[in-house]
């Protein structure tokens, strides 16, 4: 397959060649790598600035590694993937994880709270055909990660900022404050204060543009915990607004269920009989 070497262009004039970009998939829905293809206005210029060297969802062509930047989507859930992520790390100069699956284990980490053998037998008639691990874990649990981009799915503008920063060799400007900050900036009326709607905005990392409150619903935490989340205090508010203990547990146990802050908070609201897994972490 051709790699069109020496296709140097403006944005990377300081570099002798275009950096090689690879996109890898582990257990996931494809939504975060689709976000790369959803950069409709930027896709062709991006393909000029970097060499898309490995991206099976977009092209059959494979340029051999090593790669300058690897974007990794998905979580580790199978014995084969435990091996594959080590290979990906070995061929990647910079490894960036994209999305809730890769950064926290994703929705499939709900298995971490259950018996995976039972899960397997619920879905599959022949559980013995299916190779799976009993836990879904983020990429950083297995290999060093250079940057984690949050979101379920990731935000296109944050992805472009991250790629631009990589090309320019600078730190990406990705906020780690809460959704509340974005919500205020957007001029939204607070859904909790004004309407009593339970909202995870105060403990959730910004990046989506406070989408849910803009659509008159409470944030459901798809970007995971912000850098200093007071989940306990928020859980008290959720109870005041009428959420039962199992509801509070479930609200912290979705797309970032295995992220540290949300995991600890959800465990505080487990029914007392169901807390067997607590000692494990």
């Amino acid at each position, binding site marked *: 397959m051709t790699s069109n070497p020496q296709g140097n262009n403006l944005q990377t004039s300081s570099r002798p060649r275009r950096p090689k970009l690879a996109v890898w998939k582990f257990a996931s829905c494809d939504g*975060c790598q*689709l976000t790369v293809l959803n950069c409709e206005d930027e896709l062709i210029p991006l393909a000029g600035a970097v060499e898309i060297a490995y991206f099976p969802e977009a092209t059959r062509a494979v340029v051999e590694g090593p790669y300058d930047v690897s974007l990794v989507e998905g979580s580790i859930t199978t014995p084969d993937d435990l091996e594959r992520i080590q290979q990906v790390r070995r061929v990647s100069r910079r490894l960036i994880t994209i999305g809730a699956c890769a950064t926290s284990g*994703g*929705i499939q980490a709900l298995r971490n709270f259950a018996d995976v053998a039972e*899960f397997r037998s619920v*879905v*599959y008639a022949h559980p013995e055909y299916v190779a799976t691990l009993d836990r879904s874990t983020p990429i950083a649990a297995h290999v060093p990660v250079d940057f984690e981009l949050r979101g379920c*799915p990731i935000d296109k503008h944050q992805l472009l900022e991250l790629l631009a920063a990589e090309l320019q060799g600078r730190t990406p400007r990705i906020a780690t404050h809460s959704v509340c900050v974005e919500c205020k900036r957007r001029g939204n009326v607070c859904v909790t204060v004004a309407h009593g709607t339970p909202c995870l905005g105060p403990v959730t990392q910004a990046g989506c543009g406070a989408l849910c409150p803009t659509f008159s*619903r409470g944030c459901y935490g798809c970007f995971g915990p912000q850098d200093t989340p007071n989940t306990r205090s928020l859980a008290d508010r959720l109870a005041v607004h009428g959420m039962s203990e199992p509801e509070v547990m479930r609200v912290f146990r979705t797309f970032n269920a295995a992220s540290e802050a949300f995991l600890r908070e959800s465990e505080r609201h487990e029914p007392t009989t169901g807390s067997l897994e607590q000692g494990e972490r």
Partner: protein
Amino acid sequence: MTHKHKDGGHVLHVGTLARVEGEGAMHIEYRDGEVADVQLRIYEPPRFYEAFLRGRSYTEPPDITARICGICPVAYQMSSCWAIEDACGVAVTPEIQALRRLLYCGEWIESHALHVYLLHAPDFLGYDGAVEMAADHPAVVERGLRLKKAGNRLMEVVGGRSVHPVNVRIGGFYRFPSREELRGIRPDLERALEDSLETVRLVAGFEFPDFEQPYEYLALRPETGYPIESGSVVTTSGASFDVRDFATRIEEVHVAHSNALHSRLDGGVRGPYSVGPLARYTLNADRLCPIAREAATAAGLGATCRNPFRSIIVRAVELVEACHEALRIIDGWTGDGDASVPVPARAGEGYGASEAPRGVLFHRYVLDGSGIIQDAQIVPPTSQNQPSVEADLRSMVGAWADLDEHALQHRCEHAIRNYDPCISCATHFLDLTVERT
């Protein structure tokens, strides 16, 4: 990659199938010049949605099941909403149904534009991918991206974002878009309609192998209009049944080589069945809007289409339909009425189906009296199409036995992409192995 089998057989194996959504491989075995076995190996890791939905609240499946697939989240949101509303005995208003259809049009435009231009067209024009194709056909790729963007914009306006929209809830929406918000995207959709018509002309000029398959087609058919967000089930053998009966008519079978369950209709007595654009078109061509029907006729499509390679033409025709339909809904939109209807929990079983871009997607839920999910069943289109894809490969590979390994692999991949397989959905797909003497 190929290797000789110990008994003199031959294997063709493609380890990672490209330009499909998710992870799969293909394995073909030849013995004495005959195709001995064809397997689509779906090694996409299982994520156990149906298991962890147990114990969740009936309000959660639209957000949770959307995560099965980043390319068709709306399909999961819509099928789950219908199923839970069915279990709770609630019907939504015509306005809510219209907005569901509009959001779904956005997903069809985004998903079909992605498949036609970025995933499938490179097979016909001889490129590894759309970026490589853009060097020689910049206007074509630009049109594809513009169409895809129009679909995504429509989803953003109605749903908040295109991957995992946030505005969908059981009973309807969190808020209705205003007339002005919807009118704002009208110019993009008018351009998209023109681009769709141009897409039909482009793909109608591609070369198609002579290849027809006799499969039974299964699709939804609503009371009026082309099937998108709802309908009851019809098939080309004349079967017609309510969505509530899918669980008794469609059986899921677990085979060793796939983490996606295969589906059989009526015990498989009539052979494999197939869902998706060819099935929808064959069973509902009379329901296309006049512009889409004219475009289909001009592109050489008859009353039925049985050549899976020509599915790209049907997808293009469906792009016309979706753009036209979106404009029609926007023009009639008032934004009046409540954005959702109340859905009180009750014990029961509910069924839902909608036409995902790749074909019918069924959901079934059993709820207890407080709305906690006791059982969930999800039958995605790629699982239903898996036996047809394998049957296609089995018939084609025999005829292509004289091709060199590289060409054969490419042909097989092309044949698989005819179905726009979504492996993330199906595992809830592809590595190629060919064995031959």
